[in-house]
């Protein structure tokens, strides 16, 4: 019987020719990604058991990102723990504060993670890297410890959900809207234990940044990972990072591969979508209700990339963030920050009255730099709108595309970004 991409990658990393969903395997991890929140616990576990070693210091990527620059003394100690371990073990790929940013976005851009490889990290948005035709998934600190120690992790081979997106979106509709629409349809646990494999001519025509956004949100439907097959777009992206096809393995799903579910989406019918509180599946069309906002947040591993910032800039250019709205823009990495500066985007943000922050997970998970207070209402380009996610449990979080966040920031209430479609196609697009 035919196999899916996920099954093929897992087979190749567990010494099997074929695999069947449900099977338990010991899977080799090509890469382990470490940040300062979940890694210190893993290191303590290994130390307590006399297992304090690393499987391969060249295959571990360490990026402090959640609470950096340190938000308090405890966070500073966790950062110190990660950094001293990096030094002690000779971890080769360390992206310190000032040289990195949000771990998933740093990693995707390095060219280290190649198609066909496997990755685990103590972070649920690890699925982000699946856009490169990889098997990448989030795990807890114990699994992370095992992967650091032995370069392996146990998996139950997952079944796959096929998401077929055809046609082209209307102007002003983005990949974030597509994925919020899919999660709205299948539910916040609609892909629990499943791989979400994205296909269709919409995906074929989509750039890598958009593909990362789709793969990144797999966990918001409960998915084990999101996957996009390698094509010319992927190859060009890798080539720009000095990686040629002979350095990686491309997997494609067989025509007779078995899918648990097939979801079909007509991209032309998708509208700018906002996930209302308090669950990412609670999607409605942007602007269908009058909802005043106190905060507008652009950033995170989901939507803090350069194309996201360009979208925000084309809407903010020549406009002002509404009185009473606090807008924060967080470029996801140092490189994106620099590029945004070079393109004049940061100046547009500042002129509009937005605060530009440093690369970090920041307020996406309510840690620091923009945490919400009681009864605040935030329109956010992040990934999760659970109770308390960005701060006080009484705050309301509405998830949307960066364009919708920008349009809402200017209006002072949640708004349809298609009102700015006349700004599309310009130099800043």
């Amino acid at each position, binding site marked *: 019987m035919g196999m899916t991409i996920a099954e093929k990658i897992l087979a190749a990393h567990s010494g099997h020719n074929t695999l069947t969903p449900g099977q*338990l395997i010991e899977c080799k991890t090509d890469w382990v990604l470490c940040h300062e929140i979940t890694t210190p616990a893993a290191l303590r576990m290994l130390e307590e058991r006399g297992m304090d070693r690393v499987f391969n210091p060249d295959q571990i990527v360490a990026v402090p990102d959640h609470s950096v620059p340190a938000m308090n003394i405890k966070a500073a100690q966790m950062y110190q723990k990660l950094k001293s371990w990096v030094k002690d073990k000779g971890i080769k790929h360390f992206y310190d504060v000032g040289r990195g940013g949000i771990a998933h976005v740093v990693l995707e851009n390095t060219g280290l993670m190649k198609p066909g490889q496997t990755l685990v990290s103590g972070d649920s948005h690890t699925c982000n890297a699946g856009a490169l035709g990889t098997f990448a998934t989030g795990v807890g600190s114990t699994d992370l410890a095992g992967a650091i120690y032995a370069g392996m992790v146990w998996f139950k081979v997952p079944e796959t959900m096929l998401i077929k997106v055809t046609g082209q979106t209307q102007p002003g509709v983005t990949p974030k809207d597509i994925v919020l629409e899919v999660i709205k349809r299948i539910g916040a*646990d609609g892909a629990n234990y499943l791989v979400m494999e994205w296909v269709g001519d919409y995906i074929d025509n989509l750039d890598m940044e958009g593909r990362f956004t789709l793969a990144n949100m797999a966990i918001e439907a409960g998915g084990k990972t999101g996957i996009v097959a390698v094509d010319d777009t992927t190859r060009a992206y890798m080539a720009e990072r000095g990686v040629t096809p002979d350095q990686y393995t491309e997997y494609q799903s067989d025509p007779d591969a078995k899918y648990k579910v097939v979801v079909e989406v007509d991209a032309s019918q998708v509208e700018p979508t906002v996930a209302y509180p308090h669950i990412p599946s609670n999607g409605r069309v942007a602007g269908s209700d009058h909802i005043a906002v106190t905060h507008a947040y652009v950033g995170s591993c989901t939507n803090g990339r350069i194309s996201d910032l360009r979208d925000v800039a084309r809407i903010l250019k020549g406009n002002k963030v509404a009185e009473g709205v606090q807008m924060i823009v967080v470029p996801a990495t140092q490189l994106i920050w620099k590029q945004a500066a070079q393109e004049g985007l940061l100046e547009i943000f500042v002129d509009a009255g937005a605060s530009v922050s440093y690369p970090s997970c920041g307020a996406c998970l309510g840690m620091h730099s923009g945490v919400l207070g009681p009864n605040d209402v935030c329109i956010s380009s992040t990934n999760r709108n659970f109770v308390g996610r960005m701060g006080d449990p009484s705050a309301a979080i509405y998830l949307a595309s960066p364009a919708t966040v920008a349009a809402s920031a200017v209006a002072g209430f949640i708004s349809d970004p298609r009102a700015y479609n006349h700004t599309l196609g310009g130099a800043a697009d």
Partner: protein
Amino acid sequence: MPRVHVFARDHINTDEIIPARYLTTDIESELAKFAMEDYDKDFVNRVKPGDIMVTGADFGCGSSREHAVWCLRGAGVSVILAPNFARIFYRNAINNGFLALESEDVVAAFEDGDEAELDMEAGKITNQRTGQSVTFQPVPQFALDVKAAGGWLEYMRDHSKAELEDETLSAESTEAGHGHPGHDSDENLAPGTQRA
């Protein structure tokens, strides 16, 4: 007899179980003070060692933070029953030897504060107030063996690849894909476990 704490809503997520603001520690006794804080601030005052949690479906969705398992165990919770669990929470439970049991009908069978008797051998939990019993899916053999080893790191260190891959995790109980555990079949029953 252990007391049951009912959290009936579906999709109770890791931000409610242990908010990110407390993730600057991984010490279980510290995390225990904040368990379920954003859902029910008083829970930590009511829960006693050995108590049982009954929750709605997709419990533990969201973040990968293992702190969600640690804070509940630290607070005294001995076992959680739900129609199903989010994937990462479920594997974190297995890796810690913490019991997360899947039971389709459990939420309707209990009210907060009921006392219950858990029978692992029979695969059922009985409400002492009503006398009603509901069954739960058998714990996969792999999870039992990880628990017996003391946790995933001990298991991994002491077992070969062949031993691991000979384990069973194919129980329909872990196929929580669409919110409903599948049908039982005999080959999925862990040795020593019988259906009630």
